[in-house]
């Protein structure tokens, strides 16, 4: 009997003396879409590479409170000329594969990934081609093919991966991710999730201020849940800590729940009608009528449930070139009707059929927005119909109109444009320029103004871009409607707020105290 008591006491003691296993803290995020590959240049957009921004880091980043560019993996920089920036790199940083972060590794990476000859579209997003030159071990020069006064701002989207990955294991570039960031790539289970583990050797552990955050979770899991309702349900059921891009309905519903809250913030995405000045839109009265006919407030408040902010500009207020003197276009159906009648009296065929097009999956309720726009235009005398098209039909149709100089001006897409570089020139040449890749608008004087502004920097650039913005605004080139907010359901157990770039960076989140 005593023997059994002794065994029981020993067992109890052994259990009590066992070291307590610390529970792994995991941040689980539900995202709307799955990345196409793990190529590091995709990481600057959360939608293109989910969670990848936790692994790779840029030379410079942006302070969204001040709008200023601030040091990151580079501790300082110098503008050498219109094409060249010289960066001094942070010392003592290593990549997740153990190799050193230095000028040579930066050059190896940039000179491969941003060279169009290698078939990667990385340079397309910069609208310029960049190369890197090693000056010394910790000094690198970034050289743009064309003069580029906003090269520094663009470097915010250039996230760096290991040069060793490029030189030794190029085949693995699309399927792995080797950066210097706070989290290391663990596993991509296609169709299911991607996971990352904390990097104990992250340089930011020693300097959280410069790193603009700290590691608070052992592991990150980004689950791919494409259905809006299910993504929100996963947050409500406590299965995920953050549900990305939820609908206005889900946000309204969260007000009644104790465990989750809605976080909603303006994004860089702007909703607009791509109009241009071709075909029958060459008459300014038709363009003005079209813009005045649309009730932007109704779209933002009633259809988007308050998750959009009415605007008259294609960029958000912190952008260089944003003109604070340009208000949202008014809603004035009477004037719109009068303008149309006037144009019709002068022989313009204002009754010709117009298609209001939208792309499936663009944002929640995009189809209702297209329907509403078509109905409002019909109300003032336009002859409208609606097409909601899958991407494989929408995209080629969109391009065929901008590729055709004689386009009839009657296929009007209600679409989104996002300017992450936060410089108006980027959007201006694209939608208000004769050679813009998506532009239906062409005015040689405006083109000359864009190019002149692009040669400037600093305050001069800002003022020059504001001036072009005003000219384009008064010429009614495109029907700007609203800036979109993006909304998230967030567990009350997590302290996190979205930033303007809508990247979900775990270093900015922590368990709620």
């Amino acid at each position, binding site marked *: 009997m005593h023997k059994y008591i002794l065994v029981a006491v020993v067992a109890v003691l052994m259990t009590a003396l066992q070291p307590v296993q610390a529970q792994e803290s995991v941040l689980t995020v539900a995202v709307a879409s*799955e990345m*196409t*590959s793990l*190529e590091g240049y995709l990481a600057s957009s959360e939608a293109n590479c989910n969670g990848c921004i936790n692994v790779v880091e840029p030379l410079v980043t942006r302070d969204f409170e001040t709008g200023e560019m601030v040091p990151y993996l580079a501790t300082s920089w110098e503008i050498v000329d219109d094409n060249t920036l010289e960066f001094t790199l942070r010392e003592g940083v290593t990549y997740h594969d153990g190799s050193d972060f230095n000028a040579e590794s930066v050059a190896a990476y940039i000179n491969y990934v941003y060279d*169009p000859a290698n*078939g990667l*579209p990385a340079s*397309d997003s910069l609208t310029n081609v960049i190369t890197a030159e090693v000056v010394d071990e910790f000094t690198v020069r970034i050289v743009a093919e064309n003069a580029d006064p906003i090269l520094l701002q663009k470097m915010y989207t250039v996230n760096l991966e290991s040069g060793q990955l490029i030189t030794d294991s190029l085949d693995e570039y*699309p*399927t792995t991710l080797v950066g210097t960031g706070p989290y290391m790539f663990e596993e991509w*289970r*296609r*169709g*299911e*999730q991607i996971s990352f583990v904390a990097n104990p050797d992250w340089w930011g552990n020693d300097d959280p201020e410069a790193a603009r955050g700290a590691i608070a979770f052992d592991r990150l899991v980004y*689950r*791919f*849940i*494409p*259905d809006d*309702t*299910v993504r929100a*349900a*996963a947050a*409500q*059921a*406590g*299965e995920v800590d953050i549900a990305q891009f939820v609908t206005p309905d889900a946000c309204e519903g969260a007000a009644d729940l104790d465990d989750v809250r809605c976080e909603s913030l303006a994004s860089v995405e702007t909703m607009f009608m791509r109009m241009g000045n071709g075909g029958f839109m060459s008459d300014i009265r038709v363009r003005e009528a079209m813009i005045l006919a649309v009730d932007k407030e109704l779209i933002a408040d009633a259809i988007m449930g308050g998750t959009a902010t009415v605007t008259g500009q294609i960029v958000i207020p912190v952008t260089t070139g944003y003109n604070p003197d340009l208000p949202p276009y008014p809603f004035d159906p009477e004037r719109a009707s009068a303008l149309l009648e006037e144009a019709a009296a002068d022989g313009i065929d204002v009754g010709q059929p117009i298609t209001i097009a939208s792309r499936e999956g663009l944002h929640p309720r995009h189809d209702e927005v297209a329907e509403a726009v078509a109905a409002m235009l019909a109300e003032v005398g336009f002859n409208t119909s609606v097409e909601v098209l*899958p*991407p*494989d*039909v*929408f*995209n*080629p149709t*969109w*391009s065929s109109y901008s*590729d055709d100089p004689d386009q009839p001006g009657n296929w009007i897409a209600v*679409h989104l*444009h996002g300017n992450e570089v936060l410089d108006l020139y980027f959007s201006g040449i*694209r939608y208000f320029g004769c050679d813009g*890749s*998506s532009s239906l608008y062409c005015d040689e004087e405006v083109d000359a103004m864009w190019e002149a502004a692009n040669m400037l920097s600093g305050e001069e650039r800002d003022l020059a871009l504001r001036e072009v913005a005003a000219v384009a605004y008064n010429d009614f080139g495109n029907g700007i409607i609203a800036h979109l907010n993006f909304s998230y359901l967030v567990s009350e157990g997590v302290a996190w707020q979205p930033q303007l770039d809508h990247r979900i960076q775990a270093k900015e989140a922590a368990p709620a105290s």
Partner: protein
Amino acid sequence: MRTFIIARYLIRRLLHAVLVLFAVASIVFFLGRVVGDPVRIVLGVEVPEERVQAVRDQLGLNDPLPVQYIRFVSGALVLDFGDSFWQKVPALPLVVERLPATFALTGTVFLMAVPLGIVLGTLAALRPDSILDRGISVFSMLGVSMVDFWLALMLILFFAVQLGWFKTSGYGGFQYIMLPALTLAVQPFGRVAQITRSAMLDQFDLPHIGVARAKGLRERRIVFLHAMKNAAVPIVTIAGDTITSVLNGSVLIETIFAWPGVGQLTLLGLGRRDLPLVEATVFTIALLVVIVNLVVDLSYAYLNPKIRYQ
């Protein structure tokens, strides 16, 4: 002699299967190239035309269609469908790595729908026009007419969000698979129950069942040995159809539940006009359907020796 007949039949069916697979793959190849522009989907709308042309060259999409087709056929013969435009890795392994999830879901749906459908269909046939029969008929009719995506969302909101019994979505064990499997099982369950009831009723009207009853055989023996074996051919057909319909038709449900099966991959591939991926997924699903149909055909001989392989 019988073995020879079966072997000859098998060879004929296998040749037939190869032809079917070749035809399916060719149709997908040509349809994929006449509808939409894969490069514009991959690159988006804001990329200049020169870049689009460069990528088309890189992917071989600017080559004449016959050249592309010969390249496709010679690759398909060695199960090489090329690299996925979307994920930039070979397409077929992407499909193969999704098969365990698809098999798990198909198997669970089969186990949920078929045994229960057979049991309830038989019970309904044993008591025609009873309350039980009417109840089962209404229930199975409801199953057949249910809109699956609506049912999926209702099940998620009730069982996952309200009760917390199962997971809303994702890939894993019992808690994850229950809701997608239940959603997909409702329709086949209804069909199996209806077919079983009708096939068993036909059997119960036949003289040999009356003779068996007159001889005083036990009802269980009559039902399971005499009636069920003869009624099995339509039941096995509908059971096989359950498997092929889940293989073919779970695209939407896999997407809603974020279940990483072949169906979800097909939808993603189609949305991105990822031609190699679509070709590989359609080929794989067609292959599985051909195999299931072959097994169902072969089972007929076992179940009903009157059926001969001509």
